[in-house]
Structures are given as C-alpha cells and as structure tokens.
C-alpha cells in the first residue's frame, strides 16, 4: 500500500515555486531599471524579496521621530499584511484604459508622507499566493509637499531637509508605475509557471523513485519468504529421505543376508533353479542397497550432515582398489577397463573412502554408458602445480568410449536426481545421484570436477585434487553450491 501524501495533493507555496536567489536577482534588475523599490511577500506575510531604492534617507529621517515611526509602521503593516481590498485606506489606482483589464486586484495605498505604494496580489490558479508591493514612489500629482500629515509628526520636523531627501525618491505618474508593475506581474507568472513545473516534476520524480523502491522491497520480502519456505521444505525432504533410506536399508540387509545364507546352503542344499532364483534376489537386493545408499549419501550431504575424514593415503592404491572392484561388471559387459598410473607417487591427504566412492561412481557410470566392446580408462597424473587450484595437486581422469553427453547438459548432470533424458533411467537404471555425490565429495576436498564429451564418441571426467585439502580438519560438506551467495561478498 502506498504511503504518504503526494506533492500533487497539496497547495504549493510561493517560495517552493521560486528560486529565491535568482528571483531576487530579477527583482534587483527591475528595481535598478525603474528606480522603484519592490517587495514580494507570500500569503503568510513571509518576505520572498525586498529591494529598496532611493527612499532610505527620507524614510530614515521620518522614522527618527517617534510619531513618524508609529505612522510609518502602520503604513508598512497596511501594505504588507492588510487586506487586498478597497479598505483601510486603499483605493483603486489611476490607470489608463488599456491597463484596466490586466490590473486584477491592483490597489493604491497612500503613505502619510504623501508618497505612495501600489500593491498587486499574486494570483495563481484562482489562489492568492502572496503580493507584490511597489514603492514608495513620489506621485506626479502630489503638488504640495510636505503634506500636513507629515509635518505634524513633530514640531522639530525640518521641511527643507525632507524636501531635499525626497528628491532621491522616484517621481512618476501612478499609471507609469502601474505599467511597470503589470510588466513585472507577467514576468512573475512566467517564472511561477516554470518554477511550479520544475518543483512538481522533481518532487514527483523523487516520489516515484521512492515508491518503486518500496514496491521492490515488498516484492523482495515476498521472494525471501518464499525462499525460506522452500529451503525449509528442501531440508525436510532431505531429512525424510535420510530417515526413509535408513529404514529401508535395515530390512534389505536382512533380505540379502538370508538370501546369502540360502545360497550357501546353510538351510539345506538348493537345486540349480532355486540357486538361480536366490542369486537373482541377492543381486537385485545389492542393486537396491546401492541405490538406497546413494540416496542416503545425497540426503545427508544436502542436510549438511557429512564430514570428511582427512588422513594420509596412497592414491595408487586408491585407483587400483577401485578398478578391481569394477572388474566383475566390466567382464560381464565386455568392456575393457584399464588404469594408467605413474610408477610411484607420494602420499596425499584425503578421505580415502569418499574418494574411492567418487572413482567407483565415475567408473560405474562409464561402464554403464559404454557399449559392449568399448573401452574405459582411468588415469592418475603425477603431482604438479595445478592452475585450477593454485596449489600442487594431482588429476584423475575417467574416460570412456560411450554414448556421450550433450554440451548443454554439462552443468545439469551434477544436480541431484538429474539424468540426461528420462528415458535413460529406464535403459540404464540409476537414480541420477552418482555425479551429485561425486561433485560434493570432490569439492569437499577443495578440488574441482570437469566434464568433456562428444556425442557418440565418449566422455571424460577430470578430477583435480589438491595434495592437501585446504583445511586439515574434518570438513563439513554443505549442499552442492549452485549459485554465488552473499557469503562471497567482500564487505
């Protein structure tokens, strides 16, 4: 909901519409040109501009007498704050016929000294925003200076002195001053129009910016709330998966265990057909167990519950043992599996069990997606400086001559439950978790995993691992990072 009242809803004051400094310059120019003082007041009597000329000495002299001061204050008060109507001594000015239609509200206020003021209201859209006061000036029609109203203020009043001082006051017919005033009024209207336009638009610009900002903040808040809710749901999902897969594993272990016992004849000899069936139960049970273990792994990674155990380990042994565990599968499928290893290699630091799982996952994938007669290889490089890591490290390359991965899928294959196309689930099985686990574990070591592939020719996964992970402590693996979060901000 929008808050606050817009500038469009309120009345704008004279001082908001006029740039006081430049307006004063304009007034000054007018005063110097026409040699008559100009005062501009807003509707509350606030002074916007006040430029005097010529009358200072004369008025000062009059003001030096107490009665002069009293009468002067009354006249100035009348001019500044008095009604903009024909009362309190004001009368219509003597105008030439052509001026009359434009002289809306113009008044003449005589001063007790015989001088005169002209007042005109500042009208804007039917409102009176203030007034302009011209004067005092010495009206042409003033014959007998000084009048009695002036001379009577004191017995000590020196008419001769007053006459010489009043010489400096502009002498002109009322109509001439009125003409100047109308001219000034037109200029003022133009300035007000420009000023109003500038004031309203700049204010409105600020209001619009603030309001857009408010709208964005509200939207951000809603998105944040939705995001928090989604994160919570995600956490619940992971917790649920962890519990369920744990609960599934327990009875499954019994199923496999008892099948094993049956197969070994512990409950009596089985005939060939029975043995086949029981072995199938075992085999499928193992597959299911692996799948459940993967789900458990990924859900624990996503729930932030996995810790890596870093200790010295032998990378050559790691590769060899991974390869040998794959031998039965490769033999069965008719795929060649070879390991290319350096002759010797120093010990490195890592979580052996997790890294073994990484390599087995990659090799299992490679074998799975490579047709009969194809070739799978795993290469271990020697330790050398790794630009990817900015530290010494080694590489493990797993290559196959399988179906390949489309380039636009390179990122997605590392997401949980993702498979290049859902039909491959049916053809090749699996839950799409292997690579998500690989990525989490490798990154938990401070390493990187990359993929290169050409459709129909094969794929290559490259692991770049540091000799020593950044932290010697057990590292808590957090969910795979898919975006750059505020945690990466420098300040």
């Amino acid at each position, binding site marked *: 909901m929008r808050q606050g009242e*817009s500038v*469009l809803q309120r009345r704008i004051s004279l001082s908001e519409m006029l740039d006081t400094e430049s307006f004063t310059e304009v007034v000054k120019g007018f005063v110097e040109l026409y040699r008559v003082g100009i005062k501009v007041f807003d509707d509350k009597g606030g002074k916007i501009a006040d430029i005097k000329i010529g009358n200072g000495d004369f008025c000062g002299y009059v003001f030096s007498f107490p009665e002069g001061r009293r009468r002067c204050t009354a006249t100035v008060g009348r001019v500044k704050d008095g009604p903009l109507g024909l009362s309190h001594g004001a009368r219509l000015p003597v105008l030439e016929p052509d001026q009359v239609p434009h002289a809306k509200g113009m008044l003449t206020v005589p001063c007790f000294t015989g001088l005169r003021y002209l007042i005109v209201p500042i009208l*804007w*859209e*039917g409102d009176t925003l203030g007034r302009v006061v011209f004067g005092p000036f010495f009206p042409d029609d003033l014959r007998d200076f000084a009048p009695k109203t002036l001379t009577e203020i004191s017995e000590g009043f020196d008419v001769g002195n007053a006459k010489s001082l009043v010489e400096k006051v502009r002498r002109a017919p009322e109509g001439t001053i009125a003409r100047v005033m109308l001219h000034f009024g037109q200029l003022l209207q133009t300035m007000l129009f420009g000023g*109003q336009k500038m004031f*309203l*638009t700049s204010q409105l610009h600020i*209001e619009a*910016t603030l309001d857009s900002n408010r709208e964005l903040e509200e939207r951000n808040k809603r998105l944040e709330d939705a995001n928090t809710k989604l994160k919570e749901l995600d956490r619940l999902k992971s917790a649920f998966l962890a519990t369920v897969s744990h609960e599934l594993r327990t009875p499954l272990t019994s199923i496999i265990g008892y099948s094993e016992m049956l197969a070994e004849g512990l409950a009596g000899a089985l005939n060939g057909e029975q043995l086949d069936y029981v072995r199938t139960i075992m085999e499928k049970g193992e597959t299911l167990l692996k799948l459940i273990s993967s789900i458990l792994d990924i859900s624990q990674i996503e729930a932030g519950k996995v810790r890596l155990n870093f200790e010295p380990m032998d990378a050559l042994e790691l590769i060899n043992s991974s390869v040998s565990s794959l031998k039965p599968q490769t033999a069965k499928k008719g795929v060649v599996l070879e390991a290319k290893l350096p002759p010797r290699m120093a010990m490195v630091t890592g979580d052996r069990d997790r890294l073994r799982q990484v390599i087995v996952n990659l090799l299992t994938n490679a074998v799975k997606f490579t047709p009969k007669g194809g070739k799978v290889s795993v290469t271990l490089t020697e330790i050398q400086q790794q630009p990817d890591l900015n530290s010494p490290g080694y590489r493990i390359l797993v290559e196959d001559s399988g179906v390949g991965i489309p380039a636009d899928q390179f990122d997605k294959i590392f997401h949980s439950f993702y498979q290049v196309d859902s039909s491959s689930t049916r053809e090749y099985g699996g839950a799409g978790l292997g690579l998500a686990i690989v990525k989490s574990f490798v990154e938990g070591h401070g390493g990187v995993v990359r993929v290169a592939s050409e459709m129909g020719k094969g794929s290559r996964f490259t692991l770049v691992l540091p000799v020593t992970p950044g932290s010697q402590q057990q590292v808590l693996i957090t969910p795979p990072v898919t975006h750059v979060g505020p945690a990466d901000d420098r300040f």
Partner: protein
Amino acid sequence: MQLNHAQRELTVKIVYYGPGLSGKTTNLQMVHQRTSPEVRGRLLTVETHDDRTLFFDLLPVFFSTANGFKVKVKLFTVPGQVIHNATRRIVLQGADAVAFIADSRRSAAQENNAYWKNLQENMRENNLDPAQTPIIIQYNKRDLPDTKTDAEIEETRKKGKEPVVGAIAIRGVGVLETLFAVLQSAYRSLEARASLSKAIGLTEKEFLTQVFANIDVTGTELEKVLPQRAPQGAKP
C-alpha cells in the same frame, strides 16, 4: 476531494488514465483550448522529446459558487508508458473520478485490458474504493481503420456499469462530453459521500453549469444539455 471549510475551498481531482498513446494528453489539450483563460491555469505538460508524457499533465479549472465557495477542478493525465507505473500510482492518489481513455482499434484490446487491470491495482494501492470512485470509459480514435463498430462498443458497455463515450480527441469530438460525464459522476459520488449540496450548498446543476460556463461547447452534444448562453471564452 479536498474540502477546506476554513478557506472555503473545494478541490475535485479528475484523472485521465489509459494505455500509452491512447490520447490522454490530447484530451487535456482540447479542454484547454476551449476553456476561457480567466478560469483555467496554464496547461502544465512535461514531455519527452518524442511527445510522450513523462510525469503528468495538469489543467486546473476554477470558479466560485453562488455561496462564495471556491471550487477547483484539477484535471490530470498519467504517463502511459509501462515503466512509469509508480508515477501513475502517485498521480491517481485521491482521484474523485477517472476517465479511462481507451484506443478503439481492435488491435489495442489487449493493451486496454492490461491498463484496465493496472488501474484497478493502482486504485487498490491508493485505497480508492471502486464503488466510490466512478470511471468513465472513452473510446478514442473512432476515425481510425480497424476501429471497433458501434455494436462492438455497445457489447463492451454492457459488460460493466461504466458509461462509455466515443471520441476523436484530436478533432475535439467527444472530449467535452467525456469531461461532462466524468464531472457529473464525480459530483454524484461526492454528493453521496459528503453531501456537497448540504455542506457547501453546491448543487450538481450549479457545479456543471459553472464549469462549462467558460468552456466553448459549440458543436458538441453538450449544447443540448447545458443552458443556452451567448458563446464566450476561447475559440477552438
């Protein structure tokens, strides 16, 4: 509406709303042209170099009632371009009635709908009750090819309660009729809300007659509605 008893002043706000380039500013320019300078301010417009309204246009029209109440009618337009939504929302604040300027061309239907929804949203944001803020629909650009037929427009009219006025704003056709309709409905809604006739002694007839007293309605439908008088004010 802003009613200031101390200053004896009533301000009525009318907002011309609608899609970009539907003719909102043109409407105001035409009203300006036909209104006598004594009763209106200057037309304030802020446009970009390609004649698109940047903030708003504002045309104030004012008069005094027989009771000596000062009445100001402020006609605003909103900027039509999508990006100026915040400005549209601000200009809409406190509107007493809205003239929705729609483009009659069939191809513009989607835009009209989008801005209609935008108007409803921004009214909600400004706490303007649609039941108390009347809207008049002006079907502008009736002279262009691909324009909807009268029958089609009649269909649209039947879909809601808003009065519909046809217009060719660029030629002044329907502009004053729209203004009349929107002022009339504004008055009626204010009368229902704030009993203007009792509060300040301003009747609907006086309100409309006074506003249009200084607007040249020659050649418009309003000649039949408003009391006969000698033509005055600016010539079109």
